[in-house]
């Protein structure tokens, strides 16, 4: 990076900042580095850059012969000064940033992992397919109330049993007295939830057998 143009104010300011804590450009005794930078300055730095001026006067105090005797090698002016030597710490920081903490480091490894994942998925779905799915069923008891007390409950029961649907299974039935000699029919049925809708059945009963049935209620609803 260097000082930049040492004939410009900015370059001289850079020099001033650089030599504030150093007596020489490189190391702790005069070297060719000082000669090179000195030659780049055509005149002394201004007095408001005290460190640069101090350094300048010091190097100036050496004769040309002495200057020739300084150690080191003459390098390009741009190599001297701030940033000329790369900060070792910076490289470490870059390395740290590059490490992807959560990503996989190897592409090959990623492919392997993906293959394994796929295999496992297939095994799982095969296992799942073998297992017989449990069919959801419900046990329902319907209360069927007759239209009047003269309705023949046995007939009602018979008629209700004629309702046949896939997934519908009629169970036991019994007559339960309600009041004044009226009996309601309690009939059980086992229904597959997916296939049969309870509402459909109740509506059907109410609609088809209007003459016999006053209403249908669900007395019991149990999931099996």
């Amino acid at each position, binding site marked *: 990076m260097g000082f930049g143009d040492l004939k410009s104010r900015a370059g001289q300011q850079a020099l001033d900042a650089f030599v*504030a*804590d150093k007596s020489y450009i490189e190391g*702790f005794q005069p070297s060719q580095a000082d000669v090179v930078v000195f030659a780049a300055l055509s005149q002394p730095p201004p007095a408001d850059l005290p460190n640069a001026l101090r350094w300048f006067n*010091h190097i100036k*105090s050496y004769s040309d012969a002495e200057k020739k005797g300084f150690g080191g090698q003459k390098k390009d002016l741009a190599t001297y000064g701030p940033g000329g030597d790369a900060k070792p710490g910076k490289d470490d920081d870059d390395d740290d940033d590059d490490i992807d903490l959560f990503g996989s480091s190897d592409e090959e490894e990623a492919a392997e992992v993906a293959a394994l994942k796929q295999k496992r998925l297939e095994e799982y779905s095969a296992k799942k397919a073998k297992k017989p799915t449990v069919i959801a069923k419900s046990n329902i008891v319907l209360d069927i109330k007759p239209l009047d007390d003269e309705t023949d409950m046995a007939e009602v029961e018979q008629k209700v049993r004629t309702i046949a649907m896939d997934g519908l299974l009629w169970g036991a039935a019994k007559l339960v007295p309600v009041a004044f000699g009226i009996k309601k029919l309690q009939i059980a049925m086992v229904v597959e939830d997916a296939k049969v809708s309870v509402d459909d059945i109740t509506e059907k009963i109410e609609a088809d057998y209007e003459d016999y049935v006053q209403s249908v209620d669900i007395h019991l609803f149990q999931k099996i």
Partner: protein
Amino acid sequence: MVDTCEELSRLATYLGVSCGKISFDGKEKVPVLKVQNNSNPKGLVTVAKYLTRSSQHADALLGATQEDKAAVDQWLEYRVTHIDRSTQDKDVTSCLKELNQYLADKVYIMGNWLTLADILLYNGLVKIVGGLTFYEKETFVNLSRWFDNIQHQTAVRQTLELVPFQRNQLYRGVKVH
């Protein structure tokens, strides 16, 4: 307190002279050099100058001209009267401030070359500067620069440890004494 006897033997090594026997006079609290003709120089500065004069580097380290010699002497005295005798922190700080201001435009105490003044002041300040925080070193930036330069002359430092100096971005723009 600096161990003056050790310091003087280090100086002798630097100068390339044999230091003979340096003992510490407990009563006057000064180092004494046992010399053949029994003149036995007493006192840090006296012994140091004696050793330097007996070496090849006398002119370079003590000053070639009368003015230079006087200036070097003045700084040698400064070492003993101000630095060694500073007991309180504020005295030490005022010394450091003074030196920092003085060194703003100089690479060495005498300007452009190493003298006995640099060596003795370095030795006197080693413990003090070693105990400064990085922040304080930043405020005495010229002093730090000078000190860092001297301590890297291995012939001067010899067995002493290096005091670390590091510029810190946090302290940029800190008020320099």
